[in-house]
């Protein structure tokens, strides 16, 4: 279990306990957090679960798999700390993770 803070573009914060094994995307979708669309359902086939990972957390996350950057090219305003939240699996180590949601996904 990890406490994850999702911060909407408006600044609205959501602190959610997400079970291990779920993805950061699923944590958001299951808790009705607006700002993560996840159109493709987590198959890394779209870029609508795009998040900006808080800078100090970014290097602590497992590396991107092949293909994630290719999809991020197609995200709305990707930055150096961009990730697809469907590709981040929650574990105890991620307790305290903070992700910012982009202004929009599409």
């Amino acid at each position, binding site marked *: 279990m990890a406490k994850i803070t999702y911060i909407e573009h408006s600044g609205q914060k959501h602190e959610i306990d997400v079970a291990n094994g779920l993805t950061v995307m699923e944590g958001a979708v299951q808790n009705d957090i607006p700002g993560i*669309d996840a*159109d*493709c*359902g987590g*198959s890394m*086939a*779209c*870029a*609508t679960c795009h998040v900006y990972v808080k800078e100090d957390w970014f290097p602590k996350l497992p590396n991107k798999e092949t293909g994630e*950057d*290719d999809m991020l*090219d*197609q995200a*709305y*305003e*990707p*930055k*150096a700390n961009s990730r697809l939240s469907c590709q981040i699996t929650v574990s105890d180590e991620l307790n305290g993770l903070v992700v910012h949601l982009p*202004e929009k996904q*599409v």
Partner: protein
Amino acid sequence: MIKTDALIIGAGPTGLFCAHQLGIIGLKCEIVDNLDKIGGQCIELYPDKPIYDIPAIPECTGEELTNNLIEQIKPFNINFHLSDRVQEIKKEKKNWRVKTLNGKEFLTPNIVIAGGVGSFEPRKFPTKSADKFDGKTVLYSIKDKTIFKDKSVVIFGGGDSALDWAIELSKSSKVTLIHRRDEFRGAQSSVDKVKELQKNNKLEIFTKYSIKDIKGNGKLESVEIKDDDGNSKLISADYVLGFFGLIMQLGPILDWGLNIDKKTIPVNTETFETNKQGIFAIGDICTYPGKLKLILSGFHEGALAARGCFKYARPDEKLRFEFTTTSKAVQNRLGLKND
């Protein structure tokens, strides 16, 4: 105007199999899709990716699945209306009058929405200043490449479209290619070609830059780009092209008075009809308790929706349940010769 028993919106696997099921029970249908090819997400998003959860097919790619479905519906001679989008629907007595973007009209008692997550549209630049040049000098697809002759063209993107057009247009235009990172995701041969052109000063490349602003008063003059540290650079341009892939948007479906729940359409699980009589929703776009966004669920949903269409298409007939293995009528529809 085209009269048909059912109009299917979306030529993905779910729409294709629903067409098959309509054909099996003797109904005619037409299929409209926004893409220029058949296959939906399977062909647009993952043509080469293997799929492992199609019943009785241990492994196949999105393209193979699509080709097999096309083969399977061949006996029914279904008309496809590609690169078109259903724009407007209107109830007319017991039928729906349907109009598309390209001006086609259909009259049908049944509409089956198999639209996935919506229609694919190019992702646009995030900068508001791009909007005023949209469709004129800021473009997301190319219809006529001659307009770029002897012009300065700035191309954004790192995939095949961006690379292919950079190579092509560098023959007769001043091309600048801009991508947000060092690696390009296009074919290696295109990446090599672009780098060779750069070496020979046939085009310029800036990586780790993204768009900041598009400048020009009435006429496009330049593009401002920025790197991750906020440093910016101004590049003069007559045309700006963006190739950021496609996004999916529900579009006009939102205006048809259907119940919508988080970009999906609630249905009853008996016939997959929506809150509007004669409008069905199947595949990723529909929702109900227990919904799984799997292709196999879409097949099941299409089979039931087809039966749902029957009562509106043939109100005076009773649908008989028949097996393809034994029914002569069904085998005739499949074009099989009976001994």
